[in-house]
Structures are given as C-alpha cells and as structure tokens.
C-alpha cells in the first residue's frame, strides 16, 4: 500500500497526502508542510499549457479546485474526477484530495522554470 496515490498527465502530477495524515484530516504537501485550503477557484483548470486551449481540466461530480495558504492548487474529488488535456489521454482519478504538482526544469542561477506542454 503506497503512502500516497499519484497520477501523472504530462507536466502535472496529482498526489494525495500521506495516507496516515489523511486519516487525521491533515493535508501535508510534498514538502512536508501542513497546509490549509483557503481559496476556492472559480474554474477547474489545473494548469494552462503553452498552446492556446491546451489546459489540464478536471471534470466530475462535486469536483472543486482550491488554493492553499502557500499558493498550491488542490483538487477535491469526492466522487472521482476525470482529467482532460488535448494532447494526453484522459485520466480518471479515485475519490480523494490531490495536490497539483507542476513539473519544472533546472535553470542555473534562477528558480526552477515551470514546464507547460
């Protein structure tokens, strides 16, 4: 049994919080920070790609997208959700709450650059 469940679609990774913390009702991000969801987003766009209209979008019953207190997006999918993108096969994720992790690359002397496919 993995500590968390992850799904990847191109340049985004959806990751549940560690299952022990989830049982305690805590959201722990990938940097082991305890975060809280603060702002509900009006849309379900997880990330916008480089090309027009190329976005990772969540679809599903009662699906919500939230921003936490450190600016990271979290997907709440109480009844599962399907993630779509024009260049990637859709993914259906199990019910849960997922941290939306953007892929980045190394840039010498700068902060890592986000990748947008």
């Amino acid at each position, binding site marked *: 049994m993995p500590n*968390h469940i992850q799904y990847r679609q*191109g340049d985004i990774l959806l990751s549940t919080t560690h299952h022990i913390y989830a049982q305690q009702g805590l959201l722990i991000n*990938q940097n082991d920070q305890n975060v809280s969801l603060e702002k509900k987003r009006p849309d379900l766009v997880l990330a916008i790609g480089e090309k027009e209209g190329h976005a990772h979008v969540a679809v599903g019953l009662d699906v919500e997208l939230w921003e936490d207190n450190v600016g990271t997006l979290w997907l709440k999918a109480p009844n599962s959700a399907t993630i779509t993108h024009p260049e990637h096969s859709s993914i259906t994720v199990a019910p849960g709450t997922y941290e939306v992790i953007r892929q980045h690359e190394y840039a010498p002397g700068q902060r890592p650059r986000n990748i947008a496919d």
Partner: protein
Amino acid sequence: MQDIPAGEGYDSLLRQEAISIAKLDSTARSAAIAKFGEDLWIKYAGLKQIHNDGIRSTWSTANLNDDDGNPAVFVRVINSTPEPDGTSKVYWLRVPPNLHTRIIFTRGYSHAAISWTFGYASHGYTPIVET
C-alpha cells in the same frame, strides 16, 4: 534550422546553434530540436548518455556549464500519449548536475531526474498512471 553552407566554420556554426537550443525553455527547446534534428543536436551539443532505463535517458554535455562550471544535464522523456500521426513528442528537460540521491542507486539516474522535475529530491515520485 537555417541553411548553412558546408565548408569552413560549418561545424562551429552548428555547435553554436546546438548550444543556443540548449539554452531555450523546455517547450521551445523541444520544438527547435525537432526542427534541427535530434541526432544532430546530440552530436553538436556534445551530449553523452550517462543513463538509460529503456524509457528515459539522461545526458550530459561539457559544452554548456552552469554558474559553477558544472556540465549541463538533461533528461530525455517521451510523451506517453502518441500524437494523431502515431509519433510521440520528445522533451529534453534540464536537471541539476549533481543529483546525489539514494534513488539513483535503487531506481536509476533517469528516475531520479524525473522525480526532481516534480519536486521530489529523494523519494516519493510513484505515479500509478501516466499519460
């Protein structure tokens, strides 16, 4: 790539172009490599393969350094979902030159490199589905 006449300086021009491509952001770099030709880019950027797990590979070149003089390292990945024409997009993502993590020894350098691109310095990158 623009037409460059063969002759004196030809290799030098191609090396300069290859290094310029390496400095682009990942999306522009991937498009430029597709146009330049991947084999030529590898040759003229001076890339040497340092790991290959059968799906992803990691490459290094001393022709492009970071601020500390370390050689540039790239991980080559292929989109899991093919394009409508059956081809698959290839991306070359730059990663730090010194990935001294335990998973290099257990899962290989390329897995460690991809883990880093998603913010996992040591362990934790374990997707059950990839598209």
